[in-house]
């Protein structure tokens, strides 16, 4: 039983990790927790849905178009809304992202209503690919985990090994010094929002078959992702990913052994506890400048 629990924890944890990573990318780049992250993912997931159902596309072209769309949506948020802010403070940025969130939520509600829909991925929930006495792994479980881990890995490669990643890290630490070295910091920030939006969208598409597709589908994953990011340390990319998996495990074990009713409270209890005892998160090794 425990093995089964761990497996389902890892599956949901991979979704949390993706959401947490998405939030962390933009938070690191701009110190803005992007509360529109979930709704951006939701809208993009609806785009996949429309392309699959009304557009008649097959899955892979549809997902490619969705990724492109969500990347542009991220650019749009930075370029049209955040960059225009006059004399911005962190609070005004947060309010802008909440405004953007409500806007997207409104648009989705108007266009698709609050019906719960089913999205058809090429991975089936009923097809079991591994089974013995205590454990069963479905195709959807495996695909979710594999895709999530692959995306996490790609993001790490991007950040650690490419020039773009280096520029992102430089801008995160010191915007002025980055500009002095010829890095177009505005563009890098916009690209960060684009990448983070894509990561969130992949979480959205993967989570859609588990929960159902409707405008408020991403509320829970977003809050859990946020909790995971806080747990791991908002500014450590490794930290938030571990935080995501950890949260999945803690939540499921709590739900099974202690109380299923209070399962979803665990994430928020974790936010409170982490902020209380170690506000920088478990894995944040932020360099502190000596005064």
């Amino acid at each position, binding site marked *: 039983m425990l093995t089964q629990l761990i497996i389902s924890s890892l599956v949901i944890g991979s979704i949390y990790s993706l959401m947490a990573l998405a939030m962390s990318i933009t938070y690191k780049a701009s110190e803005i927790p992007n509360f529109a992250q979930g709704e951006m993912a939701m809208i993009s997931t609806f785009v996949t849905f429309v392309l699959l159902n009304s557009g008649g596309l097959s899955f892979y072209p549809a997902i490619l178009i969705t990724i492109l769309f969500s990347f542009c949506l991220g650019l749009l948020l930075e370029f049209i809304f955040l960059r225009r802010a006059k004399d911005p403070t962190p609070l005004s940025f947060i309010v802008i992202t909440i405004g953007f969130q409500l806007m997207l939520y409104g648009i989705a509600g108007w266009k698709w209503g609050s019906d719960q829909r089913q999205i058809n991925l090429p991975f089936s929930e009923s097809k079991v690919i591994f089974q013995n006495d205590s454990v069963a792994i479905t195709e959807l479980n495996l695909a979710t985990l594999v895709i999530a881990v692959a995306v996490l890995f790609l993001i790490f490669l991007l950040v650690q090994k490419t020039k773009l990643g280096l520029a992102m*890290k430089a801008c995160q*630490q010191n915007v002025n010094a980055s*500009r*002095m070295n010829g*890095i*177009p910091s505005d563009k890098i920030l916009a690209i960060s929002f684009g990448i983070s939006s894509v990561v969130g969208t992949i979480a959205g598409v993967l989570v859609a078959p588990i929960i159902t597709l409707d405008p408020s589908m991403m509320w829970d994953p977003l809050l859990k992702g946020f909790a995971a990011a806080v747990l791991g340390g908002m500014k450590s990319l490794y930290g938030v990913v571990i935080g995501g998996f950890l949260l999945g495990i803690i939540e499921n074990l709590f739900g099974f052994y202690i109380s299923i009713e209070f399962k979803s409270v665990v994430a928020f209890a974790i936010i409170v506890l982490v902020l209380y005892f170690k506000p920088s998160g478990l894995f944040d090794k932020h360099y502190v400048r000596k005064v």
Partner: protein
Amino acid sequence: MSENILEVKNIETYYDKVRALHGVSFEIQKGSITTILGNNGAGKTTVLNTVLGLLDDQPDKGTILFNGKRIDGKDTEKIVGMGIGYVPEGREVFDELTVKENLQVGAFLRKDSKGVKSDMEKMYEYFPVLRDRANQQAGTLSGGEQQMLAISRALMNRPKLLLMDEPSLGLSPALVKMIFEIIPTIRDEGITVVLVEQNANMALKVADFGYIMENGRFVTSGSSKNLREDEDVKEFYLGIKLEESVKGEQRYKRKRRWG
């Protein structure tokens, strides 16, 4: 006839509604080392920041020509791309990146990875300590090492003009000497150097020309040899007392001829 690599004409820079530069003009000769001296708050750093386009919508008035092309109002990235390097006051290295990554950031605009590699070797030869610390986070370096890193980082882009803002700030005399020894080497590579300093003594020793700033204006200029012999400069910047006064404060009463 020597050409000017940088011509600044009558620039005015505002911080909000406060005017920090009141019509500053100067020229930098190609291949020279020019120093800009002045006290705290004179506007030296503001001049450099304005040239580099780091202040939004500034300069308010005036023009800046780099190699004959206007750069005022352009984005910093573009200006850096045209060939101006900047060593900022207080180093501003990327604390959480390694020394090597810092140098790679400096080479962000360059496409030739071979050239970048050989330039990195050159930096390690200028400052051997950086090679030893190549994989260490820059935030763990000492102030002097960070200064060396900031200079190397700016050189990685192969600038034609290097602006240095108080490279001696907060360093021990031995390190200051070392930093100042590298400046002529940089010039010999064909890079024009503008050196903003409070350490007038060291700066005038190494520079060919000097400008002196006070309260957002350039008050005097000349070859550094002439400046070193100027009585006001001697007294107010080099700390050589000319007259023995009975009361200490009398020193301040003497009128400067400029100003």
